[in-house]
Structure formats: C-alpha cells, structure tokens
C-alpha cells in the first residue's frame, strides 16, 4: 500500500504534495522567474513567446494565458508560485484568491469583511457548503445559472 493521502476528501482544496509538485515543476519555475523585474517586462511584452521558453505543457501555457488559477492548480501550480503572475499583473492576494471562487472582487471582499467563508458544510466532500463542487461558481456568477 502506498502512503495515505488523507487530504483528498476536502472540497475545493488541492494539497501541494510531491505528486503535484512534479506535475507542476516547470509551471512553478516559470512563475519564480517573474521575481525579476526584467523577466516581468519580457513576459508582459510577449506572454506567449516568454512561455515558450519554458518546458511547460501546452495546457499549462493556456491556463496561464487565461489567468485561470483553478486550472493552473489542477495542472500542478501552487498558489505561492502562481502569485508571481498576479503580482506581475498588479493584483493583490485577495484578488487572486477571490478569482478562484467565481465571485466578483466586491462579493469576495464583502464575504471576508463579514467574517469569511464558514467551515460548516465545507469540511468533507459531499456536504452542502458553498465550496462544494455542485455549488460552483459562487456569487452572482453562480446565481445567474440557477435563476
């Protein structure tokens, strides 16, 4: 039996373990490169050309170009690495985190000011909290679909 991964049953949450790390190695190393101002400028000038310098999969490049952080995370990205993309775009951590919920910036900010997301219903996959798969996307984006 391989080692347990007891963290697979939490909704809306990807644990960055060795398997994810291997999957996302080149994606995350690309992100690290954006810690240098010169690289940020080159990336902004021609995103596709800059991405093509890295041994990333085509899907990883598409996910970066789309700024879809959930997609990036599925492909092995880790938020602390991906944050370098947001920083390059001038985004805050709150904007980046909110972007993964489907909420608008204002909706997410209001949720945080009101005390943040509740853990109730969000501990285990299969409960009915707002982070569960069947309730995505959240906020106005989600309500549109159900109305």
């Amino acid at each position: 039996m391989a080692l347990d991964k007891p963290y697979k049953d939490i909704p809306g949450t990807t644990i960055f373990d060795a398997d994810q790390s291997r999957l996302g190695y080149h994606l995350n190393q690309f992100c690290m490169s954006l810690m240098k101002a010169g690289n940020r400028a080159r990336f902004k000038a021609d995103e596709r050309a800059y991405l093509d310098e890295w041994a990333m999969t085509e899907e990883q490049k598409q996910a970066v170009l789309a700024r879809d952080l959930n997609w990036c995370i599925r492909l092995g990205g880790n938020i602390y690495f991906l944050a370098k993309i947001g920083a390059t775009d001038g985004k805050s951590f709150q904007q980046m985190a909110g972007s993964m919920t489907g909420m608008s910036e204002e909706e997410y900010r209001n949720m945080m000011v009101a005390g943040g997301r509740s853990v109730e219903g969000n501990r285990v996959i299969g409960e009915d909290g707002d982070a569960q798969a069947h309730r995505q996307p959240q906020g106005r984006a989600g309500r549109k679909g159900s109305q």
Partner: protein
Amino acid sequence: MATPRHTVSRRAALVAREVNDMARITASVYTSHVPAIGAALDSGKCGEPYWQPVFKGYEPSQAWIRANTPDVIFLVYNDHATAFSLDLIPTFAIGCAAEFQPADEGWGPRPVPVVKGHPELAAHIAQSVIQDDFDLTIVNKMDVDHGLTVPLSLLFGQPAAWPCPVIPFAVNVVQYPVPSGRRCFNLGRAIRKAVAAFDQPLKVQIWGTGGMSHQLQGPRAGLINREFDQAFLDQLIADPAALAQKPHIDYVREAGSEGIELVMWLIARGAMGDESGPGTPRVAHRFYHVPASNTAVGHLILENT
C-alpha cells in the same frame, strides 16, 4: 569528603554568575504575517477604516517591545516560494549570514531596512540542534520575504533600521509533507536548550509567525474559522504539548490549506520551556481580528516569568 563552607559559597556564586552570563529566551511573540499588511503599511494606508482595527491591535505590542527590546530575535517563518523554489526545499533552514535582503516577491522589494543577522548565535544554535538530531539546512545567503518582514513591521513600525539582529528560521509549509506539530514543538525545546548554552548574556525572543485560519486557493478560498483559532490560542497558552499532537489534516480541514502555517507557532512555544521549570508564561497581550485580506489575524505575546 567534607567541603569547606567558603568553597560551597564560591561555587554557588560561580554558578549564579554563569547563569547570568548565558543567553536566555525571555519571551515569545506569535503573529500572522499577511502580505497585505505590509502593503498597507508601505503605502501609508494604515489609517483607513479597513486597516485601523488591525494596527490598533498591535499598539500595545509596540509599547511592550519598546520596553522589552531583545538583544536578538529568533524568527520562525516560512518562505513563500521566494528564496526557495522547487529546485531545493529545506524542511528547516537556519540563516547564519550577517545580513539578509528584503526579497522582491513580484511587486518589487518592500521598502524596509536590511535584516542584520547574528551569525555567532545562529551557528551555535545550528550546531547544538543538529547534534540533537534535527537535520537543519544551514543558509549563508538568503533573501527574506513578507513572512519575516511583516512581523517586524507590526512590532517595530517603520524605523530606519531594525532595532536588533534577527536570526531567520525558515520552515517548509508549502510542499507536503511539512513537519508535524510534534516535530516543531520538540525543535523548540532543542532551540531553548541551545540558547541556554550560549555563553553571552543575551536576551533572546523567539517569534512564531504565519496563520491563523486562511485558505488562498480554489473554490474554498476565504475560509475563516474563529472557533478553531480561539481554541488554538487557548491551548497554545495552556497545554501546548497536547496541541502539538494535532495532525496536519485537522489544520487543513478546519483552518484552511494555508492554516497549516500555525505549526510554526509550536516551535516558538516549545522554546518557552515552562514544563522544565517556570510555570505557564504570562500572557502580555492577545489579539484577534478578521479579516486582513484573506486571513484571520492572530497575535499573542508570552513572557517567561
């Protein structure tokens, strides 16, 4: 064999002098290290209604540390994919350099003073705890990110130079497996023992940073758990050895994926060493506020009595 009385007194005097000549851990400070707090400070936004309650919570701490400035701070934090990429991930890394530059995390470096280290004490602690079976990585060149500089700003404000040397101690809480709470707590004990064996009369504070509940990723981003956080603070004060048994999965499930940073607080708490002598440390300050950006801000100051 009888020992003449004057010899005994002389020995006692020697022992007393020795204890006073040694370094000791005087207090521990615990605090979240949210990057947005640094950004608010650096861009002069701390007066805004959103930020006021956060900075107000640290006013007593700023007064406390003016009255209790240590000779050295041993600062436990985690690197956020800044100094350490995926090329190399140390579980525990101790900064032994003479200075550490504030890192460019993508927004440009924070406009804060360079961090001066304490190479002699750092090397001494490294030597001691490696011999105690902690497999540290020794680092002599490292930029330090918001995990280290935001706590300094919260306690010291915006001085032209930090008022004392800082030994950075970076813990991997980014790529799993991260060290267990028990491992962290025991490491704190080993650090206490190391400090007590350093033959200069230094007052050393140990800071544990990160947390409290927060999650920065996925549809569950924005999770906050006040009950968990308050219970964590209670137990950290009163029964840290039991708290150290909490498994990782509880942190992640209850306090969000980035709530795992709280294991670092157990290193600082383990170094208070109240089990081995003095009673429960005195709570000099306790503060809790939601939110700062995505995070629950928690803060505690414990003094050895």
